[in-house]
């Protein structure tokens, strides 16, 4: 079967610094794939290239949501990437702080809505229906993620773990076929991490959204992932199942070794 995301030889230079060096990566439908590596390895840069925030220096990025035609992501603006079905969260939370939880999710629905300036001014029936629908859809999504008790709160007043979940909810509102999560468990306590673990499994299995995950929490990564890619200094040093990665000497040297000691 065709991979839904295929990245070939992705390279990104920042001036003299090669942040990504010919990275290949594939995600298949229904998979949870993890991207791990020490700080500064280039993981976030990888996400930023795929989602159109950075333009890669070289390389190809292809999606094929239906499993048939391929579509290139090269040169697409971030909003077009999102519209094609790739949604992401950010390593350092980037919610709309002064909007309510509901409104944050409604913004996620934006690209699936149609009303323009005339609709806003005349409030024709189609627009009104759409507006009603978006509130309902957003609420249902919040229920799924388990944030319904915060629905009318401002995003800035949410506890930290809930903010991270809200970012996931907002990304899911864009109806993606694949979610890119950048360190979703960062700063979470054990209980919150466990809940996140369940949530990610639920998103993958029930919502049928594939997941590409950057994460430092090894327990989470090992328990969740079907496939793990390891990068260090912008280069891919290993790929394989959690078992293979655990026993890969290069990985242990570059990354896991420090973790096991600690």
């Amino acid at each position: 079967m065709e991979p839904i995301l295929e990245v070939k030889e992705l390279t990104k230079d920042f001036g003299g610094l090669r942040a990504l060096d010919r990275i290949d990566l594939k995600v298949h439908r229904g998979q949870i794939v993890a991207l791990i590596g020490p700080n500064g390895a280039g993981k976030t840069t990888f996400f930023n290239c795929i989602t159109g925030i950075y333009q890669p220096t070289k390389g190809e990025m292809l999606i094929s949501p239906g499993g048939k035609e391929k579509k290139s992501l090269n040169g697409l603006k971030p909003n077009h990437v999102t519209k094609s079905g790739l949604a992401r969260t950010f390593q350092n939370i980037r919610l709309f702080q002064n909007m309510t939880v509901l409104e944050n999710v409604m913004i996620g629905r934006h690209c699936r809505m149609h009303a323009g300036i005339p609709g806003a001014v005349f409030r024709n029936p189609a627009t009104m229906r759409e507006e009603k629908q978006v509130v309902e859809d957003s609420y249902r999504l919040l229920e799924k993620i388990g944030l319904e008790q915060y629905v009318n709160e401002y995003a800035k007043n949410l506890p930290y773990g809930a903010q991270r979940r809200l970012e996931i909810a907002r990304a899911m509102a864009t109806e993606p076929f694949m979610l890119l999560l950048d360190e979703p468990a960062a700063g979470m306590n054990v209980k919150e991490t466990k809940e996140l673990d369940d949530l990610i499994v639920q998103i993958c299995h029930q919502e049928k959204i594939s997941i590409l995950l950057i994460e430092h929490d090894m327990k989470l990564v090992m328990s969740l992932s079907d496939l793990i890619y390891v990068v260090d200094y912008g280069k891919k040093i290993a790929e394989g199942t959690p078992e293979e990665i655990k026993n890969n000497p290069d990985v242990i040297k570059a990354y896991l070794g420090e973790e096991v000691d600690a």
Partner: protein
Amino acid sequence: MFSFSEIKKSLLISLWFMFLTFPIMVIRVNTIYKTIEWRWDRMIMVGVGSFFLSFLWRFFIGKKETGKKKTDTGEVQQLTWIQRLTENKKIYLPSLVAISVFVVLFPFVFSMYQTNIMTTALIYVVVGLGLNIVVGLAGLLDLGYVAFYAVGAYTYALLNQHFGLGFWTVLPLGAAMGFMFGVILGFPVLRLRGDYLAIVTLGFGEIIRLILENWNAFSSGPSGIANIPRPGLFGLHLSLHQNIIYMYFIMIGLAIFTIFIVGRLQDSRLGRAWIALREDEVACQAMGIDKTRTKLSAFALGATWAGMGGVMFAAKTTFINPASFTIWESIIILCVVVIGGMGSVLGVICGAMVLILLPEYLRAFSEYRMLLFGAILVIMMVFRPEGIISNVRKTYKFEGLKDNNKDNS
């Protein structure tokens, strides 16, 4: 209460002020007798005055900080008085009626002069609400907004001069021209934000003014265009007095129209996108919002109201020249938005009333207008950075699912 260090601080401040104001307040050259007068008594006044003012200042700062701590620890965020007011129908409806009655009777009760001032204030309400879209909602600091005001005014003046078009024909044209110029000037500045955007828009504002000033064949240059007709009423002949009242009501209508449209825009898919853009540009784009289109629409829709306001301005003053469209005008409109309360419709209305009416009624202080403006701005930014009426934006609330939907779930 007044500790020694407090007194020392105030003493230092007063000394500093005495030193600063020394050249202008104390020394005076008497040109007739060619002598220098030393007005030491003034120095004492400055010293004592600044000493007490600094106490007052610190007292209020202290009060503000303790107040802030309270709201931080408090569980429920307190609603502002204005939110409580607008949500309580018992107060809201009667006050709306009272305001309407006052507004309708205003020109018949008060003098022509006052009606005229009110009309000016209403123009600022309209224009301020337009700028509020750009600055308050979309968070784009536009310092060249007056350019669109000028576009509207000159649209009317020129179309009337050359083609004899009347006010009512040009009003929508002025709006359209504003919109168009908003798009044209919006394009090059889309990549910029914050300070850079402010500086570039400031430049654009000046460019438009300089074009109007120097392109004599087109705009009659600095001497401006005179004899612009006031708005007509089905070809009836109106006396000056009647016309002023008529214009007042046109402006009331236009202001209500603006409030209505801007309110609807704000509570729409587009309005939400503007606010999200203000909150976080990167996240906004990553959520699938077209940054270019959203910014451009804010710019252009904001400019539309400036265009309309400009047409009205030209009709009201019957004479325009480039001197009416300086950067100072942009700043006043910006002050209306910032002091009133960014992003809040009611706030902008209050801001326009305060900023335009106060200086008119405080004519005695007209020389100190700038100073007063500066002082008000500084004081506002320190004590009430959110404006007179802060953020009464309607947030989307979830009120429960409808019954038929519950069945599905």
